[in-house]
């Protein structure tokens, strides 16, 4: 348990120091990842039907 906490703190400290070093990250790399998404639709799901020919 203590080992896990210390490892977590070490990783967090490493990330923080990298984040605040002010140096430029090398972005020229391929990457893979995952996302969580929230979707919101405007008029999404609303069917539209023009007037029937006889009613035009």
């Amino acid at each position, binding site marked *: 348990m203590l080992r896990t906490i210390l490892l977590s703190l070490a990783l967090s400290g*490493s*990330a923080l120091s*990298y*984040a605040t*070093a*002010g*140096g*430029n*990250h*090398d*972005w*020229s*790399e*391929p*990457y*893979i*990842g*995952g*996302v*969580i*998404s*929230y*979707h*919101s*639709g*405007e*008029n*999404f*799901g*609303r*069917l*539209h*039907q*023009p*007037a*029937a*020919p*006889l009613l035009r």
Partner: protein
Amino acid sequence: MTGGYNLEVGQNIVVGVELDISFGDIQSTSPTSAAAFCGSGCKTEVDDFSTLRLRGGYEIGNTLPYFTAGVGFANATAAVTGIGTLGDDTVSGLVFGVGVEHAFTPKITAKIEYLRADLGNLQIPTLRFFPTCSTPVKFDIFRAGLNYNF
């Protein structure tokens, strides 16, 4: 899931290409509608949404604000309660947005992103003497994600 490749061009300018595939349902229900037969509720559902986009950003330290635009594809269905599925098709269109990505380690980056998807209209066949119905497939996407750089 998402994947891509970035390239630094010039000072602080980063461009890249990104492909992502989303599994899951995006649903919306309309209790009222312009369509006469939709009084009991229409439902549109999108699944297997994917995009292929270009990204362009300006690096500020380890942070990369960026613009992105490309094409999106999705399987969309439209159904009416009590009647069943009326339309089922693949739709495609423009996807664009903005985001910010930050590098927490040389290998791990995190991002938040807003995308607007305009995938046109899903055409829905109706009775013989009535014009075809359609429903717009347009929605906003808010994302948070983690990337691993090789």
